[in-house]
């Protein structure tokens, strides 16, 4: 079976990809570039990791989508809205390429936006199953695996700060609120 994993350029998503490959899935990677809000360093790191893991790699720019979110929506929901946007775009690709699953490198409450309530809101954006092989791992466990598979060093290289991320993201977003926020973008 096939899986499309969101490769951010960070430490976690290559580890998630590796674990899925170990389970026998055919894994392809997609990086959603945030340029111009970042530089291309995350894309380059994601590509290096994909190459190391022997995965097909795609890039799609979502700068305009992020601009629309930033202009129209309550800033504290930025990460939830960003991820819903990425999942919807990934789902379109899975339909075209007959891929069975989407996957991400998220783990529970690793950062304040990755809570169960937020993940519920994020997953609601798509109908395809979203796999999260790191969901129960802590950061130290993830780093240990990253070092074992040699993606750690290339994932921790220098990069530009996330300029759009809120200082205090919502940790318990309500689905109806998120849907209302998305209506602001559509209108």
């Amino acid at each position, binding site marked *: 079976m096939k899986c499309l994993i969101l490769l951010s350029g960070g430490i976690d998503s290559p580890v998630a990809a590796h674990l899925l490959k170990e389970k026998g899935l055919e894994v392809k990677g997609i990086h959603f570039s945030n340029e111009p*809000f970042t*530089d291309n360093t995350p894309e380059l790191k994601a590509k290096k990791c994909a190459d190391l893991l022997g995965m097909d790699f795609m890039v799609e720019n979502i700068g305009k989508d992020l601009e629309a979110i930033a202009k129209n929506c309550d800033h504290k929901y930025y990460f939830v809205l960003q991820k819903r946007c990425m999942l919807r775009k990934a789902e379109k690709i899975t339909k075209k390429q007959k891929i069975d699953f989407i996957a991400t490198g998220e783990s529970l409450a690793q950062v304040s936006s990755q809570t169960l309530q937020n993940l519920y809101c994020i997953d609601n954006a798509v109908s395809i199953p979203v796999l999260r092989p790191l969901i129960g791992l802590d950061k130290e466990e993830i780093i240990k695996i990253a070092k074992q598979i040699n993606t750690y060093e290339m994932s921790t290289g220098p*990069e530009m700060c996330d300029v759009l991320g809120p200082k205090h993201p919502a940790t318990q977003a309500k689905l109806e609120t998120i849907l209302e926020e998305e209506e602001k973008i559509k209108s």
Partner: protein
Amino acid sequence: MTDYFEIKPCKGTVACSVVPKKDLRLDLNEVAKKIGNIKVQVPMLIIAEVDKVEVSIYPSGKLLVKSKSQKQIEEIANKIYEMIK
């Protein structure tokens, strides 16, 4: 580093943040008019091109300058702060 601001590398060497010594509380609409050459404007920041270098400008006056040259960063920061005075 100058008396007015401090330059800090942004998790490495691909960009640097320039932080003024005090919060400037900028009106980004006014800043956009004064600087021009705006690539993107959202409520929380502006992305402009100054001397062919991309710069993000925050309401606090903080800058993210996509340059590795300390000299260039300082020149651009001085130019921007002069323009938005």
